[in-house]
């Protein structure tokens, strides 16, 4: 799966989980940019991402992400 495909999948997950009409994620997107992205919905995003990509994150990975780009890097690593 390419980095672009991961972004596209993530876009769909964010729209579904956060109930957004649309979103255009990029590597710099962070919780500060999306009002609906709070600490509780972050967990819901993790659950959805793990399910869709068939991967599992560690708590350290989950808590160190500062933006979507770092999230995508973690997903890429897991999919290798």
């Amino acid at each position, binding site marked *: 799966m390419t980095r672009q495909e991961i972004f596209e999948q993530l876009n769909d997950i964010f729209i579904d989980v956060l*109930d957004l009409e649309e979103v255009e994620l990029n590597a710099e997107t962070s919780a500060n940019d999306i*009002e*609906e992205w*709070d*600490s*509780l*919905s*972050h*967990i*819901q995003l*993790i*659950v959805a991402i*793990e399910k869709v990509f068939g991967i*599992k994150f*560690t*708590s350290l990975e*989950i*808590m160190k992400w500062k933006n979507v780009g770092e999230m995508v890097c973690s997903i890429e690593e897991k999919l290798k």
Partner: protein
Amino acid sequence: MQRFRIEHIGYLTVNIGDTAKSFEMLGYKAGRTVDDDTQQTRICFLHKEGEVNIELVEPYESNRTMQKMLVKQGVSPYHTCYEVDDIDEAYKLMMDSGWTALFEPVASPAFNNRRICYFWKRDVGLIELVNK
């Protein structure tokens, strides 16, 4: 050695008054309802002698995450709370044990400003800690 004593079970609800009334039949009495602007929720504890407390959590309209949870799962239990003697020590222990913190300990108006924090783990779900 940190001890974790169950303090309450948290229920997400659309309306505290309606849910409290239904719990009355099960022998619970409602305490006062407190607004927690930080968490964007209204909170009411139900008590029954010798039993674990029930916490009713009614999200503000502006709390979109919890409002969506209500739409998806309806009124339902969604976390268990444990009382600890030292929440800072417990926080570190949980972090070292692979739990994910939703936020660092903060004062909670519903607990007379005792400090709380939330953790998540894939195999357990959500738990809350409250300082003694």
